[in-house]
């Protein structure tokens, strides 16, 4: 009979979901994660390059914050990334995996550039601005509505669909970049003279930053205090509950994706009219994907996203600086950024779960 009492626990530990965690404990875990990440990065640095890791971190900080120009640059990049992150957030909150922000931004930028090229000389500046904003918002929204339509109509997979739409958008923009290049066909993107966003207080990027700041507050209020924001949460949490209380799920999906695409369109508008004054197929610069991380890290809270987008841009800028100073190729900075983000995302696991060690059970 002793055989029957044999226990089948073979693992030494198992994972338990935490009920709740106080906010300060959560932050301690996050800080520990960042410190650990820096230690690991230091080890990797010494191992691969024989550099002094502390010097490297100083160089990194200098690369992101060294001069006033760099600081403005950092904030401007943060603002654009934040804008795209705000765009994907409603969709993700609804559990609609919009991986297509990259394409939606590009299409918004394409619409802006088209207005600047074809209407630039014809319309007075304020009217031109208005037309640019409207076309970029509408085209971004329409681009995002395509996968949403197929999802609601045929239950197609939105992840693949939005992802594929990126490649279509990139190629369309690549085509027009060549078409519009100066001289034509040379591939050098044309500098768009008309319809550039105004320079406020002598700061080129200030208007971008202000627009995104306003958007952040609007997004926060929309998600937390509006009826539509509430519907997004309900649909995301449980489609069954949404049906039960009479929410038209399809309508909410379409509307939310249109909003998501529209905000991406604004990001495209800011990039083309406010920052680059030109259009290239890499104008979006991978922000459509990075934004997903920013949004998740901030748990879909627009205010927290200011912090997470700042962190990520800081890492990117700092890391590219070390590549430059120490004449390493850019892969090294990617390694450092990757390690740090890995630790930060990993820390969320320890915030949600704890590890319990099983006591040793003796087999008879």
């Amino acid at each position, binding site marked *: 009979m002793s055989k*029957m*009492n044999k226990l089948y626990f073979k693992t030494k530990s198992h994972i338990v979901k935490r009920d709740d965690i106080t906010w300060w404990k959560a932050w301690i875990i996050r800080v520990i994660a960042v410190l650990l990440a820096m230690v690991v990065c230091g080890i990797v640095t010494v191992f691969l390059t024989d550099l002094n890791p502390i010097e490297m971190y100083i160089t990194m900080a200098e690369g992101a914050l060294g001069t006033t120009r760099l600081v403005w640059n950092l904030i401007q990049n943060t603002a654009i990334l934040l804008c795209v992150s705000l765009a994907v957030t409603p969709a993700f909150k609804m559990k609609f995996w919009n991986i297509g922000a990259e394409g939606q931004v590009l299409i918004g930028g394409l619409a802006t550039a088209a207005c600047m090229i074809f209407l630039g000389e014809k319309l007075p500046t304020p009217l031109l601005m208005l037309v640019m904003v409207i076309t970029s918002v509408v085209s971004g929204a329409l681009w995002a509505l395509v996968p949403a339509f197929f999802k609601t109509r045929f239950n197609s997979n939105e992840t693949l669909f939005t992802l594929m739409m990126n490649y279509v958008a990139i190629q369309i923009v690549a085509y027009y970049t060549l078409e519009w290049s100066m001289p034509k066909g040379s591939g050098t993107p044309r500098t768009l003279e008309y319809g550039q966003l105004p320079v406020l207080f002598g700061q080129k990027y200030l208007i971008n930053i202000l627009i995104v700041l306003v958007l952040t507050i609007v997004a926060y209020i929309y998600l937390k205090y509006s009826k539509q924001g*509430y519907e997004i949460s309900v649909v995301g*949490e449980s489609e*069954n509950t949404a049906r*039960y209380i009479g929410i038209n799920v399809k309508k909410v999906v379409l509307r939310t994706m249109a909003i998501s695409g529209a905000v991406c369109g604004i990001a495209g508008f800011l990039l083309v009219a406010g920052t680059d004054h030109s259009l290239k197929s890499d104008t979006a610069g991978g922000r459509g994907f990075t934004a997903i991380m920013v949004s998740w890290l901030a748990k879909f809270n627009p205010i927290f996203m200011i912090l997470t987008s700042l962190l990520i841009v800081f890492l990117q800028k700092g890391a590219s600086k070390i590549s430059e100073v120490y004449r390493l190729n850019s892969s090294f900075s990617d390694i450092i950024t990757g390690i740090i983000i890995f630790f930060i995302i990993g820390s969320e696991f320890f915030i949600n779960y704890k590890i319990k060690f099983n006591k040793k059970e003796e087999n008879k």
Partner: protein
Amino acid sequence: MENVMEQKIALELRNITKTFGSVVANKNVSLKVRKGEILSILGENGSGKTTLMNMVAGIYFPDSGQIFADGQEVEIASPKDAFRYKIGMIHQHFKLVDVFTAAENIVLGLKDEKRFDMPGYIEKIKAITEQYGFELDPNKKIYEMSVSEKQTVEIIKALFRGADILILDEPTAVLTPQETVKLFRVLRNMKESGKAIIIITHKLHEVLSLSDNVAVLRKGEYIGTVKTAETNESELTEMMVGKKISLNIERSEVENRTERLIVDKIDCNSRDGVKLLDDVSFTAYSGEILGIAGIAGSGQRELLEAIAGLQNLDDGSIIYNNPKTGTKENLRDKTPLEIRQMGVRLAFVPEDRLGMGLVGNMDIVDNMMLRSYKKGKSVFLQRKQPKSLAEEIIEKLEVVTPSASTPVRRLSGGNVQKILVGREIASAPTVLMAAYPVRGLDINSSYTIYNLLNEQKKKGVAVIFVGEDLDVLIELCDRIMVIGSGKIAGFVDARNTTKEEIGIMMTKSEPHNSEV
């Protein structure tokens, strides 16, 4: 019968006990099944039938007790072990790869073969299908198959691996009557060729028409085994439901009885053409609690969802008599929003509390808003009223929670249910539907819910109560409608009925329609 007795015992369980935490799923269960015999395991929902068989199939491991296969004491720690002792189980939810063919699924995971010989396998599969009278095309893909064909694949999969003891968990639950007949024919053929077959079921007529012996479980305990030839429906029912227990639930007399909701001949089919609701007609009266009794999955869910606007129907009508305006509205195929806009005050406490009635990750206040957030023209949410409603419900129903801003998923089952019922009642309904509202609740919370339902009844609400505990149904309700396989099996007056009467109606399929 004689030769059955002589035959060797294929599988024997002795004193099997299994607990999950503090819940005892099986307590000292002993069973025997012989070669060439069909044994039914009969019991209500949650009586531990599936748990018991999962231990034989290697899914769970018993806390104590012994299992003998072919006369040898065995230890079954995994499904692989089960196959070694020639035991095959066909689960309720099939485990097949959709994009593979039947034959590919059947041979999937075979290791001992030297060469992968598909034509040879197909020959072997064809031999099995011919021997027992299955109908199956080995080259058909799973996603092209009906539920019944998928079940056939599962059975052949077990036979292909040499199973001599076959366990089928509720095999007829997903089948049409014609398919059930076919399945039974096949099972009888297998029995003839000496296989031992165990079917888990709660359908009495199937037990009586198919099996040689019946083992009955009730609330995890083994009640006994009887020979099918020497028993009848009422004996089996009594073994299954047990003696009446008095609960002392208060029940007031029905007052101001008027027709509130008239459900007329509604039909509803699943995608596979199985009838979920078949010609269901009844009337719910104001000031009355109408109980719905039946084995789980007999169409209760579809019925309530059809009324609530979540399930489209193939036929029939659902007429609502508006007490304020006196108008009659047909609720069939309307959405929940349309129903509300028609001025129908319908409250619905669904079976799936956190998956449908509430949002687990939202706090109590936001859950209160689910019903009312649309009110008013503002684009912004009004949290003031929901907040005071939340606080009122917490106080009145004694909900144990740190605060009104605690996510409901962190509350205990009873408190979750109080929040849900409290919210539904707050809308001053004229019809209140509650599906299994006391499932998983402790005694005190259960009585709170009974009292709330009684209060609504006194206010003149038409209450529809879907329950599983017959003692509760008999003491709480005024009338009980019994439903079986999507059909109405009959109506009884709850004040003059017995558990046996309802039990027999629940498990029998012939309908006798006469409303009390």
